[in-house]
């Protein structure tokens, strides 16, 4: 699955592509929404690892504008529920993720992102 929680971790790893290689940009995506169990303690633990701007931008690309542009300091329930939805309930089933730097395309097929590289691209 590519949910936005995973998208926030993925970076391009083509040989020599070491800067501006995150976040991958979505294109031609099909999404599905699936409910997941809400666990605020997980979200609070995960928050420090989030690249916030990348998450907000990706959510907006997928049509969700519920997150504030700045990561809030007060974690109220409404915010955590929005964060939960964005990170864990939006599934990208099909589409392409493109590196902003080298423009390498990583396809998503049947919910599985293909991060394999050809032999000459391996760093």
């Amino acid at each position, binding site marked *: 699955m590519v949910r936005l929680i995973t998208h926030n971790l993925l970076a391009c790893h083509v040989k020599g592509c070491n800067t501006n290689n995150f976040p991958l940009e979505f294109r031609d995506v099909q999404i599905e929404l699936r409910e997941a169990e809400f666990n605020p303690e997980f979200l609070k*633990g*995960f928050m420090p690892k989030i*690249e916030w701007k990348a998450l907000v931008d990706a959510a907006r690309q997928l049509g969700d504008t519920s997150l504030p542009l700045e990561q809030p300091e007060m974690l109220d329930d409404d915010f955590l529920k929005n964060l939960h939805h964005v990170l864990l309930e939006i599934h990208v089933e099909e589409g392409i993720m493109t590196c902003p730097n080298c423009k390498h395309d990583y396809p998503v097929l049947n919910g599985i992102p293909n*991060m*394999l*590289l050809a032999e000459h691209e391996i760093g």
Partner: protein
Amino acid sequence: MAPKAVAPAVVDEDPQAYEDKNVHAIYDEIASHFSSTRYKPWPIIAAFMHSIATGWIGLDAGTGNGKYLPLPLDRPTDILTIGLDRSINLLRIARNAGDSSATREVVWGDVLGHGWRSGVFDYAISIATIHHLATHERRIQAVKRLLESVSPLHGRVLIYVWAIEQDELSKRQIPTGDGNSDRIGRDVVVPWVLSKKTAAAGKETLEGQVEQPVFNRYYHMFAKGELPGLVHEAAKDLGIQVGQRPMVLSDISTIRRGVEIVQDGWERSNHYVELRCWEISG
């Protein structure tokens, strides 16, 4: 069941091409049957997953059918493990591992790749995977990738590989190697006989018997001490000290990053190590 014969192997071509033929293509063929035989998590791995703090995310490098993705069973939403594998057919099974209504996070990729932000994971496991890499250098590289994937401050890593030293319940007969192999391990192929049920759709011989296809998977069987040796070599390449975090910081010490081997053991025909990263800031 007759003991499965394990035959010596020689890797005499490009290791990537060799692994493609002798590991990856085979797992794609046997995925469904293989998965049906791999459902019970090993206790030390289950305990490791149980000890992971709430809010942590991890990488399962070589997830196979994803049997570790649903752990810990008593608080499954407290952590999130992302499964990485080279076999797309195993990943299709891993997607719904443990509960067909749940969707797991899986990524199609190579354990020698690093398609992540460096250090973004809190933990990583690699179970029964690194022994499928066909050269010593590639096995070091795999350990480096694990160390690079986890947080330098607190990252935890668990690695399992197949041992030369087999337990008495093992069905396998291991060929004796030359004198060196007790130190450097042994390259072998292990036959996988596709079950009659799975193979029934396949060929029939003249006698009307169903032929069971046999696939020979490549393994590097690890010698005792070889796995912690890989950790030392990987850490050296990355400029990381191996050992405990110093209790007292001296001003003259230049050591800033380290990895401690907190467990180095053997269980059920496998060697394993558990690692813990540390970093001194400032």
